[in-house]
């Protein structure tokens, strides 16, 4: 027996083609997911006259530029060109494409798991930083840049230095109205947006075990907002029951064999982590960002901090954030008027997220306009079977098709200049949702609470007697 291993050690070892003298590994890539933004990489491949190494392990999705309000609508001709370029690259290289009209289309990080393309034990790359989402299944999944995408296209491998292992353990029961989003915003607020740089984060503890796959995906998705390129959760029965019967998951006799291999991926009991963080689930409240960095987050019950009370580096950022966000120190977060709401994205656009929002919205009217874009066409169909679209419509919110939509503001779904948006997305960066847009990140239930009250609100009283 060798030394005790972390899940990271096991996943890394299983994919290491070779280890260079300088400590950098060449890793085999099991799944490569590409989208419209991968055009730079395909262009590099073409410029060098190289073929795609493994078309059968490469899957293409229209998501970042997908028009969500009318599939034929294009905010500008560049958007059409981006989608067409992906189509021609997929055709030229023999890659399965999930196009706009495909009943399986969706955001790449929602679609991969739905299709069973995402499995425990796989190495998954995509030219998108939220690729960490797939780590929720016990996969080694990380976002890469265009040069790296080109490298994976050409060789089905990637050079990478092994990150340090970090474990975030969350124990205890989450209160009503508190979700994976709040756990994530909570740890990022505590450790900072660069808190986990250079690390792969494994999420553990009874709270994480108790999360659905949707919740685990939200948690792993946001790892990158805390600086970690990798997030992961050990696979268990929750993982297996989510995956069994999915289109590309192992079938027949292959299924129990795979589950046995996957069960062995969990970190050994005495494995060493370079860094350990513990959180008490009972202390986590519904959390909202107030600034322009995900670390600028507080419980909804909080008062906005006086920069004078913050360390100098954070104080400067707080001043700039207040100016951009149109907020003042000492102000209560709750009660801040919002102009619009958005529910969707690879972070919180899954069926469980829509159900959580619907639980708040049912029988109520939104006081501000809002857009709901499901994470995939399958999520959309499921929500419609459950009548959630009717609840959203009756509340006065717009029900759209699947895509990255207003999270990234590159497909015509934008927040106006100076407008304040309660958003279930992942980044409150300046200009992310549109030039001058003021984004407050929160869970879908909290977005719904902001919709029905017209102000940032604690969702918990609105859920009384409902969940």
């Amino acid at each position, binding site marked *: 027996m060798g030394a005790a291993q972390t899940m990271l050690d096991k996943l890394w070892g*299983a994919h290491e083609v070779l280890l260079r003298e300088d400590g950098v590994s060449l890793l085999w890539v099991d799944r490569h997911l590409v989208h419209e933004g991968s055009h730079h990489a395909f262009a590099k491949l073409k410029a060098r006259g190289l073929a795609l190494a493994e078309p059968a392990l490469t899957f293409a999705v229209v998501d970042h530029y997908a028009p969500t309000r009318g599939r034929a609508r294009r905010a500008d001709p560049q958007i059409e060109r981006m989608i067409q370029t992906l189509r021609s690259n997929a055709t030229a290289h023999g890659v399965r494409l999930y196009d706009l009209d495909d009943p399986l289309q969706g955001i790449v990080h929602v679609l991969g798991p739905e299709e069973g393309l995402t499995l425990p034990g796989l190495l998954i790359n995509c030219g998108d*930083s939220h690729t960490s989402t797939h780590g929720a299944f016990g996969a080694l999944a990380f976002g*890469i*840049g*265009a040069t790296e995408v080109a*490298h994976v296209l050409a*060789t089905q491998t990637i050079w990478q230095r092994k990150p340090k292992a970090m474990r975030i353990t969350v124990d205890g029961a989450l209160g009503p109205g508190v979700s994976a989003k709040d756990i994530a915003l909570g740890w990022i607020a505590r450790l900072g947006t660069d808190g986990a*740089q250079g690390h792969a984060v494994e999420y553990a503890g009874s709270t994480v075990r108790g999360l659905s796959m949707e919740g685990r995906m939200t948690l792993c998705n946001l790892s990158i907002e805390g600086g970690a390129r990798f997030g992961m959760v050990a696979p268990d029965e929750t993982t297996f029951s989510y995956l069994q019967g999915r289109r590309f998951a192992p079938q027949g006799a292959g299924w129990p064999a795979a589950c046995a291999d996957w069960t062995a991926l969990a970190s050994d009991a005495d494995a060493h982590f370079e860094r350990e963080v513990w959180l008490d689930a009972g202390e986590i409240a519904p959390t909202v960002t107030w600034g322009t960095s995900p670390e600028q987050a507080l419980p909804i019950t909080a008062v906005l901090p006086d920069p004078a009370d913050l360390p100098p*580096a954070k104080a400067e*950022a707080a001043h700039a954030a207040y100016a951009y966000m149109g907020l003042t120190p000492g102000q209560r977060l709750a009660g801040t008027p919002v102009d619009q709401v958005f529910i969707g994205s690879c972070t919180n656009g899954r069926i469980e997220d829509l159900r959580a929002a619907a639980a708040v919205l049912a029988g109520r009217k939104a006081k501000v306009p809002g857009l709901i874009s499901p994470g995939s066409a399958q999520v959309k169909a499921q929500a419609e079977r459950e009548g959630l679209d009717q609840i959203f419509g009756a509340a006065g919110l717009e029900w759209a098709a699947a895509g990255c939509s207003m999270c990234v503001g590159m497909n015509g779904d934008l927040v106006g200049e100076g407008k304040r948006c309660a958003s279930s997305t992942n980044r409150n960066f300046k200009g992310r949702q549109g030039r001058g847009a003021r984004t407050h990140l929160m869970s879908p239930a909290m977005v719904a609470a902001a919709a029905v009250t017209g102000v940032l609100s604690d969702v918990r009283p609105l859920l009384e007697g409902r969940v």
Partner: protein
Amino acid sequence: MSGWNSHKGLAVGLPQANIDTDQLIPARFMSVPRAEGYGPYLLHDMRRDAEGRLRAEFALNRHEGASVLVAGRNFGSGSSREAAVYALVDAGICAVIAPSFGDIFASNAVNNGLLPARIDGALQGELATALAEGARDIEIDISARQLRLGTLSGAFELDDSWAKKLINGWDDIDLSLAQGMAIKKFKDLRYQTTPWAWPSGPD
């Protein structure tokens, strides 16, 4: 891509923390083909007013020929968009000096010949003070991991493998294609021992 080891140029201070990739290049410009150049979009919404005119007070706009940025912590956090690096490189920047970088940004930088030099907070503070009044000449030496700005000098950190890549201008694809046999062998073994790693199902 040609490699480089030392550089003399003009450094500009951009001391804010958390300059993320959405600020480096807003997503709405990313459908532009690379051949058209990404320089005009660098820090677009910080550098330009609503009409697209350069803001005279913004440091980078006052020093046309700047080639080095001295930034705050967590530079390039956020999205994996390599366009953030293209915008810097196409605007003539060859090094960013900061206390920390987004992990994906840093590897994208090295893949495009852009040096992400990590310095401690104290040196960052001194450099920011020295640049508060305007741009200054700076010298950078990658193999020595040293930088010098006037009387200020100090060390920066950089992964050895990244230093080698920057200095030699190496391209990973060439290195990996040379490993074709090892990759093939690995794939065949994985296919035998881990059949579930290949997508089953209809396609």
